[in-house]
């Protein structure tokens, strides 16, 4: 079926797994009437009722901790962290327990928890509601980090997460949700009705090219693809790689692409320092050093918070214009 946006796809994936298995319980703020605000749990309340779709008090620390306890006795909680920006209120239970209990217990307590959170800016929600922050999760051992860019991937990766015995955090970009109250930067996708899963750690080449590789995730994949389309007409051939998951990271697909093009630009909506761009650059230089024709470059949010006013926000979040300029600079 044709689907606009990742929210419906994620919700459908959860619903199909919930129909099959009783061990899945959805919890978080506003997960019933409002479908977790960004639609990731839409329709589940009607299908499964309050017993399995649980609105919690506004207590991130406690519902994250409850997820740890639920997982320890065999449930698979799906937890909504409404905005990733709220992780500060619940992060202790996530990074000190959810991410570590399997390791600390010598393998006795797997932590099958799926956390779904809304990320990203570009619609004027400012410093505390526009971040992506997946770098923080990817930095701590124990989380798998999923950043879908389209509905097909979102459904397959969500079902994969629900079958994973480890904590998986799915970062859904607000500009890809397809909800009527937000801008939409994705395409319409063909999404199979039946359940299917996509492996983690498999990047995908979205647009083939020979002069330069752009590596990215989420909404930036779409911006890069539109720039690639534009530059193709001028004879600049850009390959766009959607990493899809940051943990595990598919170094193989990306380094194969970089060995072919000899140039790599990493585009990211997270903060610049000590984040995804530095990590990906390090891994690729160590695998494709000889084939690189130019230093690896990056385009990210410079190390400032996301400001409110439109021209200020545009200045810091990587735009198509900035991606284009950077590519031109690199292939010159």
């Amino acid at each position, binding site marked *: 079926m044709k689907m606009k946006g990742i929210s419906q796809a994620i919700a459908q994936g959860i619903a199909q797994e919930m129909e099959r298995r009783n061990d899945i319980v959805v919890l978080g703020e506003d997960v019933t009437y409002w479908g977790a605000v960004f639609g990731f749990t839409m329709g589940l309340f009607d299908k499964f009722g309050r017993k399995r779709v649980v609105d919690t008090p506004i207590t991130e620390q406690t519902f994250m901790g409850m997820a740890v*306890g639920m997982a320890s006795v065999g449930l698979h909680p799906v937890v909504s962290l409404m905005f990733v920006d709220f992780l500060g209120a619940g992060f202790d239970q996530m990074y000190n327990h959810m991410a570590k209990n399997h390791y600390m217990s010598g393998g006795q307590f797997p932590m099958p928890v799926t956390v779904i959170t809304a990320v990203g800016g570009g619609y004027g929600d400012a410093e505390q509601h526009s971040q992506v922050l997946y770098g923080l999760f990817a930095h701590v051992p124990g989380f798998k980090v999923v950043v879908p860019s389209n509905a097909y991937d979102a459904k397959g990766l969500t079902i994969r997460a629900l079958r994973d015995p480890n904590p998986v955090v799915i970062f859904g970009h607000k500009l890809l949700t397809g909800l009527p109250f937000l801008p939409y930067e994705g395409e319409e996708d063909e999404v199979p009705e039946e359940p299917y899963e996509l492996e983690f750690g498999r990047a995908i080449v979205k647009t083939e090219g020979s002069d330069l590789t752009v590596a990215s995730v989420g909404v930036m994949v779409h911006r890069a693809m539109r720039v690639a389309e534009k530059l193709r007409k001028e004879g600049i051939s850009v390959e766009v790689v959607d990493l899809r998951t940051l943990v595990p990271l598919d170094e193989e697909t990306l380094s194969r692409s970089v060995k072919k093009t000899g140039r790599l630009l990493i585009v990211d909506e997270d903060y610049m320092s000590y984040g995804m761009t530095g990590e990906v650059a390090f891994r690729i230089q160590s695998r494709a050093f000889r084939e690189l024709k130019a230093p690896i470059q990056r385009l990210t949010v410079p190390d400032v918070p996301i400001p409110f006013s439109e021209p200020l926000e545009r200045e810091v979040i990587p735009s198509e214009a900035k991606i284009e300029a950077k590519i031109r600079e690199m292939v010159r």
Partner: protein
Amino acid sequence: MKRIVIHMFLKPEPTVKDLKGLVESAGLTLDQLLEMYYEMSLIREFEEAIGAKYYEGKNPFNMASGPIRGEMHLSSGQEAVAVGVGSNLRKEDVVVSTHRPHHHAIAKGTDVRKLAAEIFGKSTGLCGGKGGHMHLFDKEVRFSCSGIVGASFPQAAGAAFAFKYRGEDNVAVAFAGEGAANHGTFYETLNAASLWELPLILVVEDNMYADSTPKSIALATPHHFQRAMSLNIPSYLVDGMDVIDVYLATRKAVQRARSGGGPSLIEAVTYRFRGHFEGDGQEYRERDEVEMWRLMDPITRLGNRLTKLGVEKERLEERRKKAKEKVDEALKFAEESPYPEPSTALTGVFR
């Protein structure tokens, strides 16, 4: 004089007649009481033996040296809380404990050999040496703990949620100190547990000090139980140096939880005889105060009661001896066990 001071906030010691009535109303047999005596002795012997071993190779004091590395938080003095609660639990019930976890683990039924081996960082330990003293996990008896203060409340609530969701009559217990109960997770969990009628029992072990901070300067009221009551949770303030008092309150709380009635809170007034951690200078309390509380030693107290009830001293000594032997054997096992292969450090992040 010292006893009088304590009796101002704990209950007076019952006469033989009242004691018999108390034991009867608790539905306890002498054998059960003797078993509690053994369990508490086992914990005490374990803690004191670990305490002694901990200082080996630590002169001058250095946490990184000796056979037991890192921090060490021992529970001597608090045995009645763990055993009074644990005696009401089944293997399928969940216990989530704290940075001071040994007494809770032993009372839940963890094998002391594996427990000791984990504390020594050995491959035969509960977690293969990955967790250590503050991060003990035993899936066999559904025990876990966390070194992060205040973390136990929501985790136990999550397990309780799962039990209720699946229609099982198991209960979950969260242990925490009176200091941890100042954490936001305490109030958040009380609210959620009451709202959803979770089979949860929150046990606040009030040992008067949050690390070095006396309760008097960290808590706006003398107790926490009324905070739970404000959320419609039945709450018990009990003598944490009296295993029967803890047992009685827990029995009611467990009955309520198993029958679908919802959560309860037990606040047990107790005392730790040793420092917050080994090496603690204890500048924050008077020597006299510790001595005063030692007069209320829960093991001696139960022993005296058993004697009053007609149990021969030899039977008590025999239990104490058995406990010591078991601990000696556990420490020997731990010391003789091999360390884990270094390469295992790189495994097990993900399942």
